[in-house]
């Protein structure tokens, strides 16, 4: 019987378990998004029991967040060009509980639809006053807030005349390895949705809607910036902890 390094018996571990929600997520192999063809595993995924490594996760605190990291419009000497916006919301789990004190990271193109990246060849202007990256922590109630510039749409070469709808990338750690999520926030009413294979890779229309933020008049700052609200929902925990390994099929 193993014991851990401070001598407690290791056979009494009671661990939470995070619920899976495979139906909401895109298939790794999505024919219309051509880059998946050589990069998606072909063999079935093996079930990994949720043990200590899976129910814990990185605790990344305020030391990762600088004073202006949440405001992408003040990171340079001048103001960036484009439509200033506030994006705020909550990080929740699927039990409806807020995920407090978790690091939220964002990255995006500028107002002209260009990333400050050597690999971006889109002949749109680079904005010397916009880097397009930010981070913040959720507060004790799971709230986060960014000030940024509305990103532009941009062309890519996936198919004939392909354009990505405007989007902001989000990275969330949650509380456990199993809660890690990278997603994209889209804007309401974008006419490019129907032809975008990345957006459409989420097959359930209701699940796709959960990637679209809401215009948020209440949070608009008069004479300064429009606002959008975007809640992000990570996997939740089963209500009752279990003692035995799951042994279903």
């Amino acid at each position, binding site marked *: 019987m193993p014991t851990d390094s401070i001598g407690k018996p290791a056979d009494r571990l009671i661990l939470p378990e995070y619920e899976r929600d495979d139906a909401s997520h895109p298939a790794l192999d999505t024919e219309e998004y051509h880059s998946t063809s050589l990069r998606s595993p072909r063999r079935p995924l093996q079930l990994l029991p949720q043990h*200590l490594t899976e129910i814990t996760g990185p605790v990344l605190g305020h030391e990762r967040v600088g004073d202006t990291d949440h405001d992408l419009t003040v990171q340079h000497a001048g103001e960036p060009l484009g439509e200033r916006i506030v994006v705020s919301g909550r990080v929740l789990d699927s039990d409806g509980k807020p995920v407090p004190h978790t690091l939220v990271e964002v990255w995006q193109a500028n107002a002209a639809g260009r990333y400050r990246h050597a690999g971006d060849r889109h002949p749109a202007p680079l904005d010397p006053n916009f880097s397009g990256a930010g981070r913040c922590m959720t507060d004790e109630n799971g709230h986060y807030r960014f000030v940024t510039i509305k990103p532009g749409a941009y062309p890519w070469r996936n198919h004939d005349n392909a354009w990505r709808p405007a989007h902001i990338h989000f990275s969330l750690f949650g509380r456990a390895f199993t809660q890690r999520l990278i997603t*994209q926030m889209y804007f309401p009413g974008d006419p490019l949705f129907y032809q975008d294979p990345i957006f459409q*890779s989420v097959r359930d229309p209701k699940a796709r809607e959960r990637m679209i933020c809401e215009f948020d008049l209440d949070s608009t700052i008069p004479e300064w910036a429009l606002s959008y609200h975007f809640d992000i929902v990570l996997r939740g925990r089963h209500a009752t902890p279990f003692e035995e390994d799951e042994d279903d099929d």
Partner: protein
Amino acid sequence: MNHSNRSSEAAPVAHPATTPSQTVGPFFALPGALPWPDGPEVLPAGSSGATLLRGRLLDGAGDPVPDGLIEIWQADERGRFAHPDDPRGTSTDFPGFGRCATGPDGEFWFRTVKPGPLPTPDGSEEAPHVNVTVLARGLLARVVTRIYFPDEPTANAADPVLSAVDPARRDTLVATAEADGYRFDIRLQGDDETIFFAV
């Protein structure tokens, strides 16, 4: 800055459905974005007990993936996590998290420690391992694998996860020894595709 919170935020949402995953895209490596300057340095250079863990990320044609992001999560050398949900208590300040963007040849590296073994809820033991997240353009959701260590044959033979996978593919989860650490290549697809897990 004054702005009013939406009144609806006060009301708890009963069981909201989860937000779908999307690709990290090719441009996560903006200045100040996902790759951090210290990202691969789970331990600072010169730390005692540090070892190098490195490898390459390869696609189904065997070509390097130069726009991937690898993240690792692991226990310290005693098998402890700096996390409140470790029921044994938190008595380590080892961060356990590393992040490295892949280079032109698909290579990534971490300076870290080899973790200790871990107890399981049923009283058995997991061999030392590192959990890995792979993100890249073309991956609509992260894929997850584990790194086991070649100098742990007994623990590996008894490990409940390694014991449950196809023996013919088990070696894809075990690093190889190098002079200053370990090598673990990740093959997203192909005859020697790495085993990936559903978590």
